[in-house]
């Protein structure tokens, strides 16, 4: 059972578990981007800010900025994505990009139901 999952209007998800927040992109985002060929990650220990880009995902179509739903220090990065970025296409909703020691969250994060409505 996953902890509380929240979604941004820019198609990122954040899973909060106490002080550590895992961040990824939604299945919808992965599908829109198409086959992902490269993921550029922030460094561990870097500070990232809610609503600001913190990573780049390059697909066969384009390079997309990934916006952070959370402000805080990067505690962990998913280094497996450097060699196997296609993992995001396979299961975006369950593949984290970074884990963040959260200080605060972006305004306007949505529940799964609200996010489903946004997509329509």
């Amino acid at each position, binding site marked *: 059972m996953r902890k509380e999952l929240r979604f941004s209007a820019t198609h990122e998800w954040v899973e909060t578990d106490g002080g550590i927040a895992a961040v990824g992109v939604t299945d919808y985002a992965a599908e*829109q981007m*198409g*086959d992902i*060929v*490269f993921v550029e990650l922030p460094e561990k220990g870097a500070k990232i800010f809610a609503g600001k880009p913190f990573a780049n995902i*390059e697909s*066969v*179509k*384009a*390079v*997309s*900025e990934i916006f952070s739903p959370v402000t805080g220090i990067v505690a962990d990065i998913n280094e497996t994505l450097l060699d196997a*970025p*296609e993992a995001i296409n396979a299961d975006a909703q369950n593949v984290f990009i970074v884990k963040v020691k959260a200080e605060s969250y972006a305004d306007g994060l949505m529940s799964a139901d609200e996010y489903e409505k946004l997509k329509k």
Partner: protein
Amino acid sequence: MRLIFDKSVKDRACVTLPASEIPVYSVKNAGFLRIAAAELPEVSELDLVRHYDALSARAYGVDSGFYPLGSCTMKYNPKLHESMAGLCGFTDIHPLQDETTVQGALEVVYLLTEYLKEITGMDDGSLQPAAGAHGEFTSLLMTDAYFRSKGERRKKILVPDSAHGTNPASAAMAGFSVVNIPSRRDGLVDLNALRAETDGGVAALMLTNPNTLGLYEKNIAEIAEIIHANDSLLYYDGANLNAVMGKIRPGDMGFDIMHINLHKTFSAPHGGGGPGSGPVLCKSFLRDFLPYPLVGASEGGYGFLKPPKKSVGKVRSFYGNFLVALKAFAYIIALGRGGIRDAAEKAVLNANYMCALVSEFLEAPFGGARMNKTEVSECGGEGGCAGSFECAAESEKSKKFGGACMHEFVVSAEKLKVDTGVSALDIAKALIDYGMHPPTVYFPLTVHEALMFEPTETESKETIDAAAAALREIVGEAAKNPEKIKNAPFTAHVGRPDEVKAARKPVLAR
């Protein structure tokens, strides 16, 4: 097809070189000698000719057929320009020759710069940058130098989300950080978002007008006001100048600095990696920052000027891609003032006509979608929308017809994909079987399943009709037999290269 290296047979050769008359000098101890012999293909002249002839038969260019690659302005390149660029007075000179012996070449550089100033409404310029993105980069170096000269450091460049990808890339290369400005639902720059992001740290806004959706940024006066009130610079990406040349001028719209793609708008050949030419033009207050050498005219003839005081320096060796500039020069004098204007008008008319045809079966989120082909021709015939920026700027005519696109248009296959599974990429691939080049796909990013067409002014009505008919057939087939379209093309030598594998596991050398 086998590579030329695979056809190599040891000691086979095209020509046998005579023995060298120059004594051999040993550089054994210099440390520069290569250890292994260079791996060069060894083939006969006939093998060589057949190899490249076969390759050329597989290539596709504007000379082969319709090439509506949006945003690239793949217009026909008149052969006259090639013969001009082949004149020995231009090809057999050396860049270090004394200026008195190359007056003709200097005159071309001088006059072309003058013509481009006239066409763009700018005060000065340099032909040095070798391509469009190089022109962007050079302009941004000048922008940085300008603010430094005032004792300021401005680190931000604003870029609309519909911009060409080169804009943020050039800004990052020049050491700036990039701030994305979202578009409104109608595809134009969101002025409120622009105001919100415009602060003391902003060096420039990079704007393409008409933008990459083929829409004229009708709020350009207000945009210029917002940017200039902040003492920032307004940068014009000249990629879409073809739509407005001879009609309106970036200098008059309020732009301070810009680049031009001579290889697009001014009909020098491009594709396949170049060479291009991306002159930079600017208002007089930025003149001192231009790259050099610059050519001036005096009673005694043409000559190089002293480098501008605060110049960003040279951005390329010698004088840029001179022979590309020469072709653009030939284009401008062949067309003249009226012809330049006419080319822009026909480019806009062709795009609107094709948009009207295609939007009957593919959704056009912007512009011509709301017009049918009769209305477009009526509108154009009466001097309304076709070829006129006033149309997109809400003239009475355009209000009646609901706005037009400029020299290119974007349609979306999103609904088709939901209904049939056939994507924009599949449509593009299927077009190859009709002997046509695919349009640009998945750009701009603001439109899902985007297909972007730019027919250019050099295509006839018959060619555009045939392309629209082919697209109609493909979309019809997608509904009946989607698998067929998903597997297209069937006639191409290379149908669907594995883009994913190419990006993930590139093989860059043998």
